[in-house]
């Protein structure tokens, strides 16, 4: 048990703080929602009602989609694009999907490689892109969920203000939908871009996200 916790401490840590943050978001979101309900002379909702509301769903989904988009783009962009001196980047001469030998695929797969790495054909092709495929699928599903929950939430607000509700197709071209989307995207793109640049000149001793403290600034793709 102790060994399991130590071996998976990174995943467990983020899983726990994710749940804690989600609970915190739901509680504060309900408080804010109920404040607005009272201001509009409407009935307040219980915690269970808020958890299953479109308002909570859209707030969750809009952040999920942007996070998964951020990592999807980073996974795919770093195949082809480099940042000289960054620990997050490959060396400039290694851009592209690389050779089967470099990627330990097919005949070059080691004995303990996943079966999908040496079986070849469609299975290996899918496995070779499985990280991007799954991250991309979660991104699109979250974005779709954002739009569906968003139109329900938007329409609830429209009706509260005695205005006509809109269809899903009308909603996905509203400033509301794109503002929710782009305000998340810009912050994700800034964070990941700045991390790529910061890691050229800054160090975090002991972190694999940083070069070794003494590594030269020009060293690219060197983990600490």
């Amino acid at each position, binding site marked *: 048990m102790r060994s399991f916790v130590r071996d998976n401490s990174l995943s467990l840590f983020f899983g726990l703080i994710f749940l804690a943050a989600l609970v915190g978001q739901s509680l504060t979101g309900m408080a804010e929602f109920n404040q607005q309900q009272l201001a509009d002379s*409407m009935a307040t909702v219980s915690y269970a009602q808020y958890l299953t*509301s479109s308002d909570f769903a859209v707030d969750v989904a809009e952040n999920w989609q942007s996070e998964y988009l951020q990592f999807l783009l980073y996974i795919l962009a770093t195949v082809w694009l480099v940042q000289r001196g960054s620990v997050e980047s490959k060396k400039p001469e290694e851009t592209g999907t690389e050779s089967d030998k470099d990627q330990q695929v097919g005949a070059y797969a080691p004995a303990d490689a996943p079966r999908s790495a040496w079986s070849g054909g469609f299975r290996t092709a899918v496995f070779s892109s499985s990280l991007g495929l799954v991250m991309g699928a979660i991104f699109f599903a979250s974005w779709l969920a954002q739009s569906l929950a968003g139109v329900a939430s938007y329409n609830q607000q429209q*009706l509260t203000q005695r205005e006509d509700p809109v269809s899903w197709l009308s909603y996905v071209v509203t400033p509301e939908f794109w503002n929710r989307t782009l305000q998340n995207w810009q912050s994700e793109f800034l964070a990941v871009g700045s991390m790529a640049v910061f890691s050229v000149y800054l160090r975090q001793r002991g972190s694999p996200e940083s070069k070794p403290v003494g590594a030269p600034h020009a060293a690219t793709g060197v983990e600490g």
Partner: protein
Amino acid sequence: MARLTSGYDVRMRAPLAALVLACTPVLAGCAAAGRPDVDSVVTHFYDAYDRRDGATACSLLAPAARQEVERASGVSCSRGLLREHLPRAGNVSRTTVSGDQAQVHLGGDTAFVAKFPGGWKVVAVGCSPKPGRPYDCEVEAG
């Protein structure tokens, strides 16, 4: 006066499956279940108003709408409401429910309804559309 219920607008119901991902599986279910109740409260409201039964009609208004009628008229809701000149409503033609809010289009009027602990209540009636702006309503919560 009996009114028919038809033409529910279901575009606002978010498909349940897509929201499983976001751990919020009940987005559509609650609202869909409320549509007959929404129509019923609006129909009963106009039935009572047409019968000049102000007490019953006021009991179907949301608290804030009731208070607004009393404030604007200076008399009880049941008397003040009957001073309002609401259009002849006609039959329900389309109902849209989104969460705890609903809009009911009738032959001659549009009503807004909201869900309260005691059930659905009318929050605005006698509403005329204003392009690009909120509906202008004869009776509504302040």
